[in-house]
């Protein structure tokens, strides 16, 4: 290693680590995430387009209540006036103004979720007038007076009217067990009842309708299921008023008397999340990000006591950008590991960063699924070569045919994958696809150029390095460290300068030349 390399590398490492240490000790920023459970940052993004008329966009906002604490709420919208309207514990965000062209509305908040247990009270209690009036009547959406509904209730043999808990259990059982859930079904209560299958909305409306028809006050509810990875999913359920408490009932999931710990309640009383008047088009989506820090630690990260750092904090970026950066900032760690394996250990891998890319693809699937995919690609490479060799095709069309086969296989998996890990697999299928394509190409070319043995050795080494990188890419500690302390990238660059200037032996050299280290070997 030359002195210049030593010096430059040292300076970079020093700069990176000293900034990191200063932040960690002087500013007292948390280095190790405290492994919080159930803390999320959620962002609602609404895009509205208007033709110059006055109008408003209304969105259901969650409230702090049993099982969920909402804090750190911020809202931003161009050219619109924002207000929060509260009625009966339900909060609605209202953005008013003249809608001209495209408007982007972003509302974000943090939420701490916990499981909500609502034991079903067995003692009878007459609902107060206000509850009965609001939550027992029939409507077009909830046709509790319809003849079909009456007709289904009679043969069920409901318990006596004062046993509201018993009626709830029976009707819940009926909708959960007798009505199938189908994405192709209806969202309407009566159509769902007639077809004996419906979408989640249809099942929930049917349950609420039946409860109301049976004299149990009930209302639909809508919220989000926040996953550990990926985008949140809309989830709907029913709430029944039994002796003073609203009992949650999830007919799709078959959960009664409990709200799961990953479900956030956005609105009860109706299934609408975003409504608009006076605009031409409106679309909305929710984004969510799992937080690794406790609320007070987050505060420290977002607004460090140092004003310059405060303005540089990555924690204040929009959720989508944060999610992308969290992945991106892990890449330097991955390439560091690759450089160590290639230049210090001496493994031969595909391409320079193929292992990092493989690990990045694995990040979006589980390790087993990902490795299975890599093995599948390698099998396909060898099989395709054997099958296509007789046809004598040129290189590019031959690779293109292999790619078509991969697409067909992925499509086939989509059909079978609904029951398997479907969602996890297809959550991030695009990126892994691109990476697998590159892997196929590298593998086929190596196969042709250097033979099966060499191609398998390189594929094996690539997988070894990818598996070594994978835990880093999945680790919430590494993610927090790199995201909260991006100056560490500079330190990594310093270490890479050192590795780049390292002229000593690789482990593979020592193995290759081991016979030269034995004295006796050299005697002719």
């Amino acid at each position, binding site marked *: 290693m030359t002195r210049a390399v030593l010096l430059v590398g040292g300076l970079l490492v020093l700069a990176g680590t000293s900034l990191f240490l200063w932040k960690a000790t002087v500013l007292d920023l948390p280095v190790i995430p405290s492994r919080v459970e159930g803390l999320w940052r959620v962002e609602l993004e609404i895009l509205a387009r208007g033709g110059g008329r006055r109008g408003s966009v209304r969105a259901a906002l969650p409230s702090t209540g049993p099982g969920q604490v909402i804090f750190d709420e911020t809202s931003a919208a161009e050219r619109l006036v924002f207000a929060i309207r509260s009625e009966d514990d339900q909060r609605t965000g209202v953005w008013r103004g003249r809608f001209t062209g495209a408007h982007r509305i972003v509302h974000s908040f943090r939420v701490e979720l916990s499981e909500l247990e609502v034991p079903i009270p067995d003692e009878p209690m007459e609902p107060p007038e206000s509850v009965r009036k609001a939550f027992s009547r029939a409507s077009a959406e909830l046709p509790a007076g319809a003849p079909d509904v009456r007709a289904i209730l009679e043969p069920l043999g409901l318990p006596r009217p004062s046993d509201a808990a018993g009626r709830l259990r029976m009707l819940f059982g009926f909708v959960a067990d007798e009505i199938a859930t189908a994405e192709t079904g209806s969202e309407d209560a009566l159509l769902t009842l007639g077809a004996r299958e419906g979408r989640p909305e249809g099942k929930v409306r049917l349950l609420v309708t039946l409860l109301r028809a049976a004299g149990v006050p009930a209302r639909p509810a809508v919220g989000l299921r926040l996953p550990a990875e990926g985008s949140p999913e809309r989830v709907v359920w029913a709430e029944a008023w039994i002796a003073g408490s609203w009992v949650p009932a999830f007919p799709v999931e078959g959960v009664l008397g409990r709200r799961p710990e990953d479900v956030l309640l956005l609105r009860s009383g109706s299934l609408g999340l975003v409504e608009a008047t006076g605009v031409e088009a409106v679309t909305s989506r929710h984004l969510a990000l799992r937080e690794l820090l406790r609320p007070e630690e987050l505060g420290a990260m977002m607004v460090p006591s140092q004003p310059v750092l405060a303005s540089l904090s990555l924690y204040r970026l929009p959720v989508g950008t944060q999610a992308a950066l969290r992945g991106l900032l892990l890449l330097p760690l991955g390439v560091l590991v690759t450089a160590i394996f290639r230049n210090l250990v001496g493994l031969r891998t595909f391409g320079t960063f193929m292992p990092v890319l493989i690990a990045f693809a694995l990040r979006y699937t589980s390790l087993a699924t990902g490795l299975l995919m890599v093995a599948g690609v390698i099998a396909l490479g060898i099989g395709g070569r054997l099958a296509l060799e007789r046809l004598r095709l040129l290189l590019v069309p031959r690779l293109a045919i292999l790619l078509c086969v991969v697409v067909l296989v992925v499509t086939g998996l989509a059909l079978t994958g609904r029951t398997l890990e479907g969602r996890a697999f297809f959550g991030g299928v695009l990126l892994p696809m691109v990476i697998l394509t590159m892997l196929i190409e590298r593998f086929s070319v190596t196969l042709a150029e250097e033979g099966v043995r060499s191609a398998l050795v390189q594929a094996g080494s690539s997988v070894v390095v990818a598996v070594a990188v994978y835990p880093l890419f999945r680790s919430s500690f590494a993610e927090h460290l790199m995201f909260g302390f991006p100056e560490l990238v500079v330190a990594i660059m310093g270490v890479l300068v050192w590795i780049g200037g390292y002229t000593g*032996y690789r482990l593979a050299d020592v193995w290759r030349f081991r016979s030269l280290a034995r004295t006796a070997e050299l005697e002719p």
Partner: protein
Amino acid sequence: MRTLRRLRERGILGINRRNLDFTLRWNERRLYPLVDDKLQTKRLLDAAGIPAPKLLAVVREHFEVRELPARLEALGSFVLKPSRGAMGNGIVVVVARDGEWLLRPGGRRMRMPDLQYHAASIISGLFALSGHADAAMLEERLVVHPDLAEVVSDGVPDLRVIVYRGVPVMAMTRLPTRRSGGRANLHQGAIGAGIDLAGGRTTRAVQGTEPLRRHPDHGRPLLGRRIPGWDRALEIAVRATDRTGLGYVGADVVVDAERGPLVLELNARPGLAIQVANGAGLRPRLRAVDDAWRPGLGVADRVARGREIARAASLRLAS
């Protein structure tokens, strides 16, 4: 740890140091095409009057592949190889014809359409270093000098000379075996036999890292063999590398029965297995070249200097 110290003491060159201190430092990237593209190398050698296998034809385009049978009509034996191939991949040797069959070494054979497909694959870049379009070269097939041919059962043995700053520093001969499929590729199981630069005799032989005294296929002795045309081989290796402008080169030489040593190709990233074949490290010799280097030395002087350095290094090793 002890292994590490021993390797360092014996001056074994590792990959990282080869890359940083030798190939990166002495071989300019822009000069690589001169040696990676065998057609360019050939032109360079011809211009300098350095003996090389004769180029019979070049096939660059797919339509030319159709004309291949006609062009080959008059030839009984030839070699088809990619212009930018690496490690001996994609080379087809035809030794004779038998009706529609093209006979290859080791009793294998192929038909003309197979050869045409192979030529098309070469043109598509299947064997090229970068995978880009390539040209297929047709060369005369060499007849290996009997002194070397008797050591191998099958395939063409060659000589590899490492030339550093115009001075030859280490050499070996690569002897194909049945395990290597007739190829002179050490990774695939060919034998590497170290050559004493001064005397031109084989001193040590290895297959992989295993030292050998006799050829595993037929049991003939491997050590103490005199390389035919050794002085000439060293001279053309040095002259060839002089033309490239590269400072750290592996020159591959074949000894033809009639024409004597011919430069087959040059390599800007020569492998390190030559150290195992010689049982000696490259570093002391490279350092000696640096210490004794003077500008303007002629080829003969530099070859003589290389032999001295090698002799001194082996004496030091023996003591």
